[in-house]
């Protein structure tokens, strides 16, 4: 056949020509991996940002705190009952006056007092005075603690009365140790974490055991109140491990249920009654172990994987078992030595769940071929092969799908995998997932609409129980954060009495830990590789089959640092981002949590009825009710409802007007919110109005402000507050015992949901509301009961309604959720890196993909083909931004000069002219219409042709953002709301320029839809709405940016 021959030779020639090129390309490809570099640059930039303010953070809190605490108590104390004064004032004053102080520290204080309260409950006979005394002791203790921590080394001079000498000694010892730790790691967090340890009273130590990966056991004494971090740090120190972010401590509730110890929480609150026995494990399996810095880290990863393999968690084929086994032998025994290694030397090792003679022979055979490999090289080879296994790093959870079919949910670095038996039946990459949540024992993911779909879909899975659902949720939150984000997300804003976990991953992300480990500068530590037969002994890591719940999310010393980093991040980087954003009108939405805040505002009332059934001990209702009457409580309660006394002082800063305007903005989003809640929620916002406080846009600090309030509230009620907070710090209420039902007439039992878990919160809420409104206890009590009951009665109906609607309403029913605003995450990433490039989101996508590819040696192989293919093939990136996404992410700053007036010009001008207030003169009109063909020459970047049009209207009042704003950024806030076709992002920036404060509200309205939507009308509507929402503000700039995707052209 002639054609055949002809084409063959041609092709041959071609391939020959290409040969050298290809060869050339490859190394470049391998060495460059642009995405990777970029990510490093970015993260390094970030890390620099964050490292700068660290020292201040470190030094300020403890010393300041001590001095300030007493004088400041005055302002607020008048609102407090005398017996509460000290404590309360202390905690409340803090956020205001010590902005730089570590949030953790504050939280600590709160928690401590909580536990005091708990004690009170535990011994109800204790007189009130005694309790007060206790608190004062605690207070004194507090101060002393701080003084100690500020001095750091000084032995405690005056311990609380009840402290025993013995314990003091112990404490000192511990302090010494901590000092060492701190020195080594140099973090602020650690110190603060340790503060509570030196608490003056009743220091008790607990022995705790940690099973290490090499099968040995590490034991140490821990102060009873120690946080997970302390233990984790100790363990890592013991192991001489620096890259610890990949690891964590596990405890087992039973042989099945493993929980990660949360390093930011007290251990004892996580494991409850279980013995303090933990297992040191890999928590995040690095997709590319070769990127780990130290051999010792790889070694521990190897140990973990060997366990995983032997236990069957990581299935592999016969050949792979043999190969991995042979590397293990090489790493631990060195070169095969026929004399030394007699025939059965292998059977001492375990390589597979069921090891056969045949396998051992194969292992031995392969072992001989590894001659010359150093242990570290053998480990690396081991990892190179293990990482390709399909179940590598997949954390499996049993579940059922909506039809009740048994499935497994696997959480991994890239997303969520769904397995049925051994088959993968679905996969949701992180970019695809918009939100994860759980309610009761259900776990939900909200998935981005597919290319042709318009609506997001929510997919539910049924977990065996509530705890399992929560565990899965947490693992997802952590994995997403660790692998997908550059820096940890902020926990959601605390809201008064709101539900929903504040749990967020607080450790370092992979990007951060890589960054950090680049800085590791120590000679490779010597460590001894232990024989893997010991590994086999400790098999699947389930020791004793006891334990409770927790999560390691922080990593010891590094974790401490991480927390430090984070603060700074938000502070410095956030500010930087904002400024940048201001300049180029690139409104990188700042914080997701704020976003949620808005939503919560919307839903807060409803949400309150959705408190999940508590897994905590049930308290008889009487114990609460009896404490409802004492007078001081009422004061407290009214304090809460009319928070003005607290709020006003905070607001008497220059930007009070701005605060109100801010409130306004957020207000319009909150419909039907009960006012006290509303204002309470706003408080942290308002408090941020002061420049001083701004730096604290961080995690726990919400908690501190808010918790103080809610805490005191609860203590008045003599609630065991702690029992209301589960280990995530969110509030759970016990259900009333079923006995209560028997008090009701049998006929009513069905209808009155007295045992509903929502009953108590509803009751309390209603009570508080009524009380604040009428100032009369009897009245409030009388009415709150029926009201609460009716709320509870309605709850299931609302829930079922909202979950069935499957759309946005669903949010209300959801208990805990994390919004994955991927665009935002990505913008966060890219705004640091790419300036005003309209494809930047995709860029960052690719960055991530690049990493993957690098890891998988993918680039090398595709380099040559892909270049050619690019010319004629549409490559579909997997998380391909759809129309909607693309529009949404287009930065407004993109202005393309064009020749023609755009199609949109006419109507738009009309609209905006009509809608603008008289003060606004439209001065500059840039109309551009450019058909941009964005052809990106990187292989992985999809060729997407878009048509963009940008029209800018600007008033003379303000020169847009063109002027380099030298003002001081006071606060910034981003709120996003979505309807079907529009997404509104409200970005509020407050600046102080030369004493004059200025609030700028940038609203970005993204109208999405197909051609049949009238964009112009939608735009007009949006502008009108925006104006109505802010009648007191003037429109200074309108940028219309239109982007249309052109149909892909056929290459041929």
């Amino acid at each position, binding site marked *: 056949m002639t054609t055949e021959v002809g*084409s063959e030779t041609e092709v041959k020639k071609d*391939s020959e020509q290409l040969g050298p090129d290809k060869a050339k390309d490859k190394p470049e490809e391998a060495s460059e991996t642009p995405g990777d570099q970029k990510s490093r640059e970015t993260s390094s930039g970030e890390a620099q940002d964050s490292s700068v303010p660290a020292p201040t953070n470190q030094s300020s809190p403890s010393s300041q705190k001590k001095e300030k605490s007493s004088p400041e108590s005055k302002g607020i104390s008048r609102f407090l009952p005398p017996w509460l004064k000290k404590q309360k004032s202390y905690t409340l004053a803090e956020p205001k006056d010590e902005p730089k102080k570590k949030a953790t520290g504050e939280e600590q204080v709160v928690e401590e007092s909580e536990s005091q309260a708990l004690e009170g409950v535990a011994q109800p006979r204790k007189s009130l005075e005694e309790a007060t005394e206790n608190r004062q002791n605690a207070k004194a203790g507090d101060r002393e603690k701080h003084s100690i921590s500020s001095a750091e080394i000084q032995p405690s001079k005056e311990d609380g009365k009840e402290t025993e000498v013995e314990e003091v000694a112990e404490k000192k010892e511990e302090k010494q140790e901590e000092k060492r730790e701190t020195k080594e790691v140099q973090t602020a967090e650690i110190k603060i974490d340790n503060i509570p340890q030196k608490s003056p009273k009743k220091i008790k130590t607990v022995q705790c055991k940690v099973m290490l990966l090499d099968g040995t056991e590490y034991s140490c004494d821990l102060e009873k109140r120690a946080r997970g971090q302390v233990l984790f740090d100790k363990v890592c120190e013991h192991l001489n491990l620096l890259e610890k972010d990949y690891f964590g401590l596990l405890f087992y509730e039973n042989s099945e249920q493993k929980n990660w110890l949360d390093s930011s929480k007290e251990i004892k609150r996580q494991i409850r009654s279980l013995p303090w026995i933990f297992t040191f494990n890999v928590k995040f399996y690095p997709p590319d172990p070769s990127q780990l810095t130290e051999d010792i880290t790889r070694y521990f990863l190897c140990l973990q994987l060997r366990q995983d393999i032997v236990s069957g968690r990581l299935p592999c084929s016969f050949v792979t078992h043999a190969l991995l086994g042979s590397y293990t032998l090489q790493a631990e025994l060195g070169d095969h030595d026929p004399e030394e290694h007699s025939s059965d030397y292998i059977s001492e090792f375990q390589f597979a769940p069921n090891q056969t003679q045949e396998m051992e022979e194969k292992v031995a*055979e392969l072992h001989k071929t590894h001659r010359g490999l150093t242990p570290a090289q053998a480990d690396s080879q081991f990892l190179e092969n293990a990482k390709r296994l399909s179940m590598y790093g997949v954390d499996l959870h049993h579940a059922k799908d909506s039809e009740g079919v048994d499935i497994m949910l696997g959480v991994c670095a890239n997303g969520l995998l769904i397995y049925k038996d051994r088959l993968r039946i679905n996969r949701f990459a992180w970019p695809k997932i918009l939100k994860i949540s759980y309610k009761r024992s259900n776990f939900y993911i909200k998935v981005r609409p597919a290319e042709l779909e318009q609506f997001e879909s929510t997919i539910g899975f049924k977990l065996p129980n509530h705890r399992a659902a929560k565990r899965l949720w947490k693992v997802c939150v952590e994995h997403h954060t660790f692998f997908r984000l550059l820096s940890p997300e902020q926990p959601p804003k605390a809201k008064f009495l709101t539900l929903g976990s504040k749990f967020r991953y607080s450790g370092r992300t992979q990007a951060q830990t890589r960054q950090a480990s680049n800085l590791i500068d120590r000679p490779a530590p010597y460590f001894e590789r232990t024989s893997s037969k010991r590994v086999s002994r400790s098999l699947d890591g389930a020791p004793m089959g006891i334990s409770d719940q927790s999560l390691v999310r922080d990593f010891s010393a590094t974790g401490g640092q991480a927390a430090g980093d984070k603060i700074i991040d938000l502070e410095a980087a956030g500010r930087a981002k904002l400024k940048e954003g201001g300049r180029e009108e690139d409104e990188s939405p700042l914080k997701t949590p704020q976003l949620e805040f808005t939503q919560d505002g919307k839903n807060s009332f409803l949400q309150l009825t959705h408190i999940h059934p508590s897994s905590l001990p049930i308290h008889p209702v009487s114990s609460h009710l009896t404490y409802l009457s004492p007078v001081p409580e009422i004061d407290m309660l009214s304090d809460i409802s009319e928070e003005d006394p607290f709020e006003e002082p905070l607001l008497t800063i220059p930007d009070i007007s701005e605060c109100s305007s801010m409130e306004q903005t957020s207000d319009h989003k909150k419909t039907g919110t009960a006012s006290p809640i509303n204002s309470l929620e706003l408080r942290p916002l308002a408090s941020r109005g002061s420049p001083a406080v701004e730096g604290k846009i961080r995690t726990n600090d919400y908690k501190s402000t808010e918790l103080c309030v809610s805490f005191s509230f609860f203590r008045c009620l003599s609630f065991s507050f702690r029992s209301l907070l589960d280990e995530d710090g969110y509030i759970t209420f016990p259900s009333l015992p079923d006995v209560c039902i028997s008090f009701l007439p049998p006929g009513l039992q069905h209808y009155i949901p007295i045992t509903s878990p929502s009953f108590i919160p509803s009751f309390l809420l209603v009570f508080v509301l009524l009380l604040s409104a009428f100032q009369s206890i009897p009245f409030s009590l009388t009415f709150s009961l029926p009201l609460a009951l009716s709320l509870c009665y309605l709850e299931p109906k609302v829930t079922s309604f909202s979950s069935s609607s499957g759309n946005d309403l669903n949010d209300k029913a959801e208990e805990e959720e994390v919004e994955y605003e991927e665009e935002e995450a990505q913008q966060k990433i890219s705004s640091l890196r790419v300036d005003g490039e309209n494809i930047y989101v995709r860029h960052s996508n690719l960055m991530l993909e690049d990493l*993957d590819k690098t890891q998988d040696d993918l680039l090398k192989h595709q380099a*040559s083909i892909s270049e050619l293919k690019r010319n*004629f093939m549409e490559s579909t990136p997997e998380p391909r931004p759809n129309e909607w996404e693309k529009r949404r992410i287009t930065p407004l700053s993109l202005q393309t000069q064009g020749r023609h007036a755009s199609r949109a010009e006419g109507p738009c001008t009309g609209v905006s002219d009509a809608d603008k207030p008289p003060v606004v003169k439209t001065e500059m009109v840039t109309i551009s219409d450019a058909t941009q063909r964005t052809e990106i020459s990187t292989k992985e970047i999809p060729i997407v042709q878009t048509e963009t049009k940008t029209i800018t209207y600007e008033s003379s009042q303000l020169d847009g953002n063109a002027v380099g704003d030298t003002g001081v950024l006071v606060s910034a806030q981003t709120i996003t709301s979505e309807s079907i076709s529009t997404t509104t992002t409200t970005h509020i920036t407050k600046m102080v320029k030369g004493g004059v404060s200025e609030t700028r509200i940038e609203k970005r309205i993204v109208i999405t839809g197909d051609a049949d939507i009238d964009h112009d009308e939608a735009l007009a509507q949006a502008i009108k709405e925006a104006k109505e929402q802010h009648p007191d503000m003037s429109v200074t700039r309108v940028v219309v940016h239109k982007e249309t995707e052109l149909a892909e052209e056929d290459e041929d």
Partner: protein
Amino acid sequence: MAGLGGGLAAFGRCTHAVVRALPESLCRQALRSVAGPEVDLARAEREHQLYVGVLRGKLGLQVLELPADESLPDCVFVEDVAVVCEETALLTRPGAPSRRKEVEAMKRVLESLNLNIVEMVDENATLDGGDVLFTGREFFVGLSKRTNQRGAEILADTFKDYAVSTVPVHDSLHLKSFCSMAGPNLIAIGSSEAAQKALKTMQQMSDHRYDKLTVPDDAAANCIYLNIPSKGHVLLHRAPEEYPESAKVFEKLKDHMLIPIANTELEKVDGSLTCCSVFINKASEL
């Protein structure tokens, strides 16, 4: 490195190919999804000889040719009875009962190659090799009339190193009726709606991103990619006479050695290029 296929570098490597001669019974008795013109046996044999000739002569593979069995009209389609990956071969339980006996001859020949042989004995399982797409990183198994969930599970148990994802296949006989691998990271895919949908499913299920090569004709998307040490990327694809538009697309793969092969006759009985061979890589004997 032998481990885990040595990554993508080894994808498409092979030393041996198993093929089987056409029985005369094929013309009348072979299973076919749509009635149509009768198979011209002589022409079918010529095409098949050419096919084998390319593998043996041009590519230098050791071709093990099984004799035809008249009682097994479909026996030429050896792909369906065995899935070979690295050192392991899974002998399938074909979805069509009439084809189950085809496995025996395949078993013998694979045993002679010293592969680890796994047999699908589960009565409830069916699997046709034509529904199995191995990408070098993972398996996709089409759930079709011929292949069921259980069969896919057994495949997953056999090749534990790899992820096995299932893809619903409705409109065509096999998953590979409209797609195949055309390179280490390149999936050739037909343009039909069903094909594109299946591709989307695969893309969603995979942690990896594959490039795709879209060809106008579904049948032409079934091609054979091989990586022959002395020849580099080799691609056997349908001849331009059969599918001119699709052939044009293949011709743009500049660094592939392209070998057009006609398959007009066997196509009438749902045969495609990959159907007629099983490839084995035994080169790296230790």
